[in-house]
């Protein structure tokens, strides 16, 4: 069996896109990815969609196929919060490796910034909390992550300055990326002086709310010789799941990212040290810091000082979220995670222009859904 490859990748504009719609963004992203792969609509025999806040539907993938007038032989929607994009890629790889499909379109998009009333996305997101045992206490998603942040800082000595440096590194990358939603330079002081959302997380410790869409094509390895662009191999995938609600998490220090990454590294036959560029889910600064330590890129308590001294920058020890991540590039629901996937493909194709990590051969992508609840890791290789 040849490993699955990524043959096409595309992301739409991101930010405040007046006139955009959920399905319109899906269509643009899908067509872009199909064109990028040098394929035709008829070549797509599998479709995976995620979810939408502005056009929620029980059967989003069927709605999408109808909108596009395509009739794939495999079609399903996947919902695992922020882990969805990575889980979709993992599922698409399994579909082509099993012989079930040849070219799977993995597509995401939402207009949650302009398509909802102010505060709408925040209120909808808060529904990941438990209706009976969490909602009545005014839990928001940032507040739930803040519970983890406070615990982690108390336990391992992580500081607010260290967390802020993660946001600053992301912004520095976004400044090099003309497509990014937020490109105004910021300093650690700016982050620390920004409005407190839920202590210790300031507004600049939090991801954006953006409109946008992104898609990739996952193809059978055998098709690689005919690919329009350099195929990117999916070397390894893995998942880890410990809970849904933060009140029920078995640990507040170790989450499913540890197991997800361990499995993906094992299947790829590599270790964390072999990774040239990492695109890791960064819904909040604490999310990324914890994942960096839990996955094993840094020892416990060492990611903070490393981030503060520039480890995540393009020339650092672990260039991370090179497009700007969820805090500066943009966050459009499931597309937010897909932006990480598309950026990893660009980095490995050496197409990342002003933010290219030199000679990158191996990329790591990670998604986190819920309150550090559902995790999926991917390892990609330049063929």
């Amino acid at each position: 069996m040849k490993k699955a490859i990524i043959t096409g990748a595309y992301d739409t504009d991101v930010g405040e896109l007046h006139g955009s719609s959920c399905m319109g963004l899906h269509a643009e992203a899908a067509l872009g990815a199909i064109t990028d792969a040098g394929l035709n609509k008829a070549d797509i025999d599998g479709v995976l969609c995620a979810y939408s806040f502005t056009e929620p539907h029980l059967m989003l993938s069927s709605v999408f196929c109808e909108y596009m007038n395509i009739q794939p032989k495999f079609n399903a929607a996947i919902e695992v919060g922020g882990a969805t994009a990575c889980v979709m890629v993992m599922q698409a790889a399994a579909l082509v490796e099993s012989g079930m499909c040849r070219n799977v379109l993995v597509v995401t998009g939402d207009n949650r910034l302009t398509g909802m009333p102010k505060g709408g996305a925040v209120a909808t997101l808060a529904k990941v909390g438990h209706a009976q045992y969490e909602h009545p206490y005014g839990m928001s998603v940032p507040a739930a992550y803040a519970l983890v942040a406070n615990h982690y800082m108390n336990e391992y000595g992580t500081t607010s300055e260290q967390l802020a440096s993660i946001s600053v590194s992301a912004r520095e990358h976004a400044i090099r990326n003309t497509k990014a939603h937020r490109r105004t330079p910021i300093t650690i002081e700016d982050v620390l002086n920004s409005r407190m959302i839920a202590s210790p997380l300031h507004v600049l410790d939090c991801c954006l709310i953006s409109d946008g869409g992104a898609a990739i094509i996952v193809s059978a390895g055998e098709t690689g010789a005919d690919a329009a662009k350099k195929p990117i191999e999916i070397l390894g995938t893995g998942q880890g799941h410990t809970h849904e609600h933060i009140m029920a998490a078995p640990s507040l220090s170790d989450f499913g990212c540890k197991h997800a990454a361990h499995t993906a590294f094992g299947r790829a036959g590599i270790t964390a040290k072999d990774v040239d560029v990492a695109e890791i889910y960064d819904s909040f600064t604490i999310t990324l810091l914890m994942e960096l330590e839990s996955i094993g890129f840094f020892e416990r308590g060492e990611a903070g000082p490393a981030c503060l001294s520039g480890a995540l920058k393009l020339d650092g020890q672990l260039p991370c979220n090179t497009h700007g991540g969820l805090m500066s590039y943009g966050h459009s629901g499931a597309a937010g995670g897909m932006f990480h996937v598309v950026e990893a493909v660009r980095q490995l194709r050496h197409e990342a222009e002003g933010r290219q990590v030199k000679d990158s051969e191996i990329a790591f992508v990670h998604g986190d859904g819920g309150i550090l609840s559902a995790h999926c890791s991917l390892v990609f290789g330049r063929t």
Partner: protein
Amino acid sequence: MTEKPIPVPNPDSVEFWKACNEEKFLIQTCNSCGKNQFYPRAICKHCHGSDLDWQPASGRGKVKTFTVVNHAPSPAFKEDLPYVLALIDLEEGVRAMMNVIGCDVVDVHIGMDIELTFEARGDQKIPQAKAI
């Protein structure tokens, strides 16, 4: 919607919420493996047995972790800002989410002792953590 959420009991939780209205916090104990669990379920999460009993909590616990919320998830919580959201470890070994009330938000800390109290939410009382 300007009202704060009121828990809607289901068959798993109806006993729990009924007891809350009598200002008792019930924990499920498994007669097969002897372990406790919160939140209430139709089965034991440890051994998947279904012979479960209810036992009232002592009411004593500690703050495992907390945050001071400055941005409300919905308009209903705006008037309470800033408020403390916390995970509370009860001495019976179960964890629940509550607000810490009865003290200044700056005085809340990890490891702080609390006692259970109950807050009326419409016709339903919900458990809360009160600073001792």
